[in-house]
């Protein structure tokens, strides 16, 4: 049997990245909302809602990066130097934020410092991720087998826009997660933020969707040429459907629907990006097949992935199930 291993792996890496965005997105979002909590009790409740799961969520980022290295070494070796600054900033921000989960409970007098580290780390990491995405979408200069662009290429109006867009997106994910997990004042605050973020998110999806085709002719052909348009049309239609669900859920004070609808928006936007990218992994310079490592490397890792990813998913679901329900106000113990 002759499988297209490169294509299968492109799908798997794409899955790891969207899993990361959907999962770590909401705990980063909780971090972004952290400064808006009124008091210590509320902050405790917010942090406790993600404390048992954030570590697993962030592991998808390692799988995305590590997977790219393993099966698309050429893409990895081009993208990483091109994104040196945003990735470096993101990593440091994630370090700040990761340690605050622990340090915050251990600190007596300087707890506020770790509150800020958690919030600041979440905000900066998110913005850097958004900028990295924008940089990739607008294209990377490649010569031979290496990055040949400049040091500041990652800084552009478009990447600043995608940075803001992701910030808003994660706020929406975080606030709808809190609607689901929190009660009382925190939940009320989450509803307020979710309503604003939902509107802004749709605006951002609109702007980015219209701007992206203007960046490359390749993207334009994908979305606005007949009959290709017919195949991609379901994406915007479904986006509108999810948006309607989201607004209805927020209006009727439903607890789970807004979170699910937001995840839907993220997945659809991501699918839209995937359609734009295909068949390139580095837009308009390196295709999936050119970047892929030799078939036997891909095959070797695929055997493990087919076996291990379902297991990973099942114990991830198990872990979420163990910590199901409202997070509660255990914070009383800490104040």
């Amino acid at each position, binding site marked *: 049997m002759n499988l297209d291993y490169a294509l299968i792996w492109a799908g798997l890496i794409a899955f790891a990245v969207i899993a990361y965005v959907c999962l770590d997105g909401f705990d980063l979002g909780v971090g972004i909302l952290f400064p808006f909590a009124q008091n210590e009790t509320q902050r*405790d409740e917010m942090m406790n809602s993600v404390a048992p799961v954030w570590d697993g969520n962030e*592991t998808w980022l390692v*799988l995305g990066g590590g997977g790219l290295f393993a099966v698309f070494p050429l893409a990895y070796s081009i993208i990483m*130097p091109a994104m*040196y600054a945003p990735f470096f900033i993101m990593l440091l921000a994630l370090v700040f934020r990761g340690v605050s989960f622990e340090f915050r409970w251990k600190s*007596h007098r300087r707890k506020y410092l770790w509150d800020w580290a958690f919030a600041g780390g979440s905000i900066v990491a998110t913005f850097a991720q958004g900028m990295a995405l924008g940089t990739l979408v607008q294209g990377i200069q490649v010569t031979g087998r290496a990055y040949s662009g400049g040091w500041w290429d990652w800084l552009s109006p478009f990447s600043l826009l995608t940075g803001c867009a992701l910030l808003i997106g994660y706020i929406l994910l975080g606030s709808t997660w809190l609607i689901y997990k929190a009660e009382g004042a925190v939940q009320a605050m989450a509803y307020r933020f979710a309503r604003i973020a939902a509107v802004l998110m749709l605006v951002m999806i609109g702007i980015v969707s219209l701007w992206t085709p203007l960046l490359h002719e390749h993207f334009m052909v994908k979305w606005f040429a007949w009959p290709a348009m017919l195949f991609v049309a379901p994406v915007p239609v479904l986006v509108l459907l999810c948006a309607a669900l989201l607004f209805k859920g927020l209006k009727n004070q439903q607890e789970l629907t807004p979170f699910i609808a937001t995840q839907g928006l993220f997945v659809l936007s991501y699918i839209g990006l995937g359609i734009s990218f295909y068949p390139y992994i580095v837009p308009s310079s390196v295709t999936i097949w050119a970047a892929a490592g030799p078939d*036997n*490397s891909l095959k*070797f890792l695929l055997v493990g992935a087919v076996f291990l990813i379902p297991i990973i998913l099942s*114990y991830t679901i198990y872990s979420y199930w163990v910590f199901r329900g409202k997070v509660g106000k255990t914070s009383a113990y800490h104040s």
Partner: protein
Amino acid sequence: MEWFDAHNLARLQFAFTVSFHIIFPSFSIGLASFLAVLNGLHLYTGKTVYLTLFNYWKKIFAIAFGMGVVSGIVMSYEFGTNWSVFADKVGPVIGPLMGYEVMSAFFLEAGFLGVMLFGRERVGPKLHFFATLMVAAGTAMSAFWILSVNSWMQTPAGFGYNDVGQFIVKDWLEVIFNPSLPYRLVHMVLAAYLTTAFVVGSVGAYHLLKQRLNPNPDAQGKLSAEAVRTMFSMAMWMAAIVAPLQMMAGDAHGLNTLKYQPRKIAAIEGHYETVSRAPLILFGIPDTKEQKMNYVVEIPVLGSLILTHTLDGTIQGMKEWPIAEQPPMGIVFFAFRGMVGIGMLMLCLGLWSLWLRYKGKLYDAPLMHRAALYMGPSGFVAVLCGWVVTEVGRQPYTVYNLLTTAQSASPIDAAAVAGSLLAFIVVYFTLFGAGVFYILRLMSHPPSPIQSELSRDTPLRAAGFVPPAFHDEQMGKQP
């Protein structure tokens, strides 16, 4: 200042970030196993002392593990940002191994960590024990895969090349189980266990010494004292058993290195000249320019005896290779002596503990407790020295004899690398300094049995990392 080009700055940065990183896994690999043993013993015997100890070390594990995770994520991206040519060429070989590490180890650890830290009351003692086992298994599997990667870079096997100059795999089993993996794996896992044993022993010794000041404890104090004695005893058993095993493992690893990386051995031994009946050089100052050792203190013939297990075995000297292919001898030479010196001290402390145990005085030996207290960080120093030996000894190559370090670097400006290096130094020292401070503060409190009893009754809501009783005790001063 010429030395500080982009490539050497990238080397400095990698050395700095990986050195910081390895401290945490070498502790958490051992500690995860220790926690699994404690949890299992509690399940099996029903004795509360094991649960008390489990809850005590669990909090310390949480901090160390967290710092290991975040400093590890940095590593997985650094290959690409600073070593992109290396990543492109070697990716098809070592990339899948790291992919297996992520899928079989990182997810396992992260997936069960939440249950292990917060979930005991939610899932019951048996599933909780299972979760602890999974975390321990994850750390061990992670060690296996990453050491397989490192070993392949030291002793590459089972590979070929493709037409764009990438390494490709001919035989996966040869790649994974390359010639130095078994030795390196055993040596490193034992090192992690020793490191943990000396940390646990040090904390135990500290509280044994403190409890001498209070000869008539209340019921609480008695329970706490029992926990302290238990952890000290367990740690000293580990030291006494593992330290000699580690010496044997190290010797076998050395012989393997002699076979595959003779230059590294020449640097370790400090030999420039090829000699038979080689002496063991205890001390000397290497002079790279003149290619000779100055101020040598040596024991005749012992060098040949150790490395070749015969009296007149020949050891190749560094002069056999051109200077451009030599690893920097001084660093390797001294780091090796640091590692072995600490190993000897560890062995001595292990034997001392056996003697005291035989005499029935293990818990009544302040001098030995003081020694154990000061040796708390010794494992970390030994691990760092060991890694310096093996990594610097591989220079000037990333893949031994096949790809030079200079060829591996990214096309990045020196300024960018220097800037990020500076930021890493500032951030790591600040954050991990704070982490170590919090760990030390946790260690300064004795294990308290109440804390584990009460935390059982707490509602199962994810309660943060600090069980309520402990926190109340902390906060009692500022209600």
